């Protein structure tokens, strides 16, 4: 970056800046490393010396315990199932709505966009949402997690803006070749928008995997719970000294290492998605926002 003669102040700033940023990065990383290390430690080791960054005798006991205790393993499968279907519904409905909205010649487009943007500013709120889901008979069914959040207005606008920037010529050429708009979306617009699609898939998937509140509200049957809800029961409620939920009457308080292992299995699957999509998301997120 240009001229090399740095002042003393400038150099001091650089040193402190690097130092500060390193500390920030470590603060983000250390708690996670502690949890991962702790989950591989034996219970005895964790209770004797508290600070375990490298377990002396790494063991898979807590993971074995999780896999053998049906409920956590089951909730992990539930989470995977919920997330995959939810994300598929999200992407399908968002793409199908974003494409027509990206066609500037479409009549009524402005009104529909206004209707969408308003939902960013004002919502019905918790109780009306709950009553609607109940009215529709979706309680205790995964549809209560899939349908009410099918399209995030913010993501819809992002994708619409991206489609809008695709060159018009290709679309016209396809029209002349006899493609209808649906075919143009599938064969042309989507393949050209892979960075955006990847970014949105990531956003939706992370949101779906991490969400716990709708499940807590709509799903009463604990066998259907996703792992995040169980995590709340096992790690938070037990520690806060609450009476644990009625569903858990015959549930034994798990050892500390198991809690750490549950945190790991609830987190690592979604973290693994990140590197695969990483090269796309920054690009996709930005491209969609250049022009409105």
């Amino acid at each position: 970056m240009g001229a090399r003669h740095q002042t003393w102040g400038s150099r001091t700033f650089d040193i402190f800046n690097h130092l500060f940023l390193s500390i920030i990065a470590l603060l983000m990383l250390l708690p996670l490393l502690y949890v991962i290390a702790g989950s591989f430690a034996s219970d005895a080791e964790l209770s004797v010396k508290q600070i375990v960054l490298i377990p002396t005798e790494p063991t898979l006991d807590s993971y074995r315990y999780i896999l053998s205790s049906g409920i956590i393993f089951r909730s992990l499968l539930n989470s995977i199932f919920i997330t995959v279907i939810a994300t598929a519904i999200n992407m399908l409905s968002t793409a199908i709505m974003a494409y027509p909205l990206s066609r500037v010649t479409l009549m009524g487009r402005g009104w529909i966009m206004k209707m969408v943007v308003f939902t960013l500013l004002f919502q019905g709120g918790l109780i009306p949402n709950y009553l609607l889901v109940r009215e529709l008979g979706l309680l205790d069914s995964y549809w209560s997690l899939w349908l009410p959040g099918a399209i995030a207005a913010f993501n819809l606008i992002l994708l619409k803006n991206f489609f809008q920037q695709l060159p018009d010529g290709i679309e016209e050429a396809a029209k002349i070749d006899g493609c209808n708009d649906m075919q143009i979306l599938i064969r042309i617009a989507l393949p050209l928008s892979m960075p955006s699609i990847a970014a949105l898939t990531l956003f939706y998937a992370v949101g779906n995997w991490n969400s716990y509140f709708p499940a807590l509200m709509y799903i009463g049957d604990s066998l259907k719970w996703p792992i995040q809800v169980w995590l709340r029961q096992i790690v938070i409620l037990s520690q806060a000294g609450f009476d644990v939920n009625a569903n858990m009457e015959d549930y034994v308080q798990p050892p500390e290492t198991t809690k750490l292992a549950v945190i790991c299995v609830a987190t690592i699957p979604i973290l693994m998605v990140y590197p695969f999509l990483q090269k796309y998301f920054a690009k996709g997120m930005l491209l969609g926002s250049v022009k409105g």
Partner: protein
Amino acid sequence: MNKQLHMKARPTSTEQGGRNGSRFLKTLIRDKWLYLMLFPGVFYFLLFKYGPMYGLIIAFQNFQPVLGVSGSEFVGFRHFTRLFTEPMFWTLFRNTLILAVYNIVFFFPAPILLALLLNEVRMKFFKNTVQMLIYIPHFISWPVVVGLCYVLFTINGGIVNEIIIGLGGNELNVLMNESAFRPMIVAQQIWKEVGWGTIIFLAALAGVNVELYESARMDGASRWRQMYHITLPAIRSTIIILFILRLGSFMDSGFEQIFLMVNALNRNVGEVFDTYVYSVGLIGGQFSYSTAVGLFKSIIGLLLVVAANRLAKLWDEEGVY
């Protein structure tokens, strides 16, 4: 970012309905596939976004599920009067407001500052590594973040208290302590989202012409002056847009998080409108009253966005709508 919520595009004059209906029909037929594709989405928004807004009517009723929205008795503003005279009201109002202000004062500027510092780093490898690490917490759910907090800070052998005691200090029971509740909430928010929040600013900064810095340096401008005169103006409009959007959710600063953090011992500082709606409405079954509470909160939020957007336009900035 700054334009993504901004839609100017209208049907061009040639395509607009026009005077005669046949042209209107022609456009409909020409775009039949587009309308077909639009249909499920519009239906979704009407049902799942505007349906609950219609459901807000019950805030003015004595809603009874058996009678439904149309059959329930209309009671006007009775639930709102009850809310305003409830002794709990001021506690809720204060707690919500303080958390919101903490959020704006401490959390909102954090990603901006971090992005400015990252922008000053010239070693590409260092910058990329730091970026990669600080994005990670964004992918972690609130139950995990709060759970992590419990595991790390508990007085029953949590690592943080072990370190404090090891250094000769007194153990801190931050989880059960009223005064620690708000700082804890803000600290969790910053930990989880500060890194992710830098993306949008770093993107705006990447668009700054490097020659500006070079000529500023030629003129003898220090790093601080460069930051103040070149870097900050470059992200000004992004900051304003994000600020307006933030105000839009001013009144609900992180329900999913607060819900997990509130317990019997910190309810006095932790109970906010949203958690109150949950316990009175969903647990207590007082649907109408709790809907009124939620509506009151949403209206304040809406007013704040409208005001902020006005203000932004007054300052010649682009608003969100």
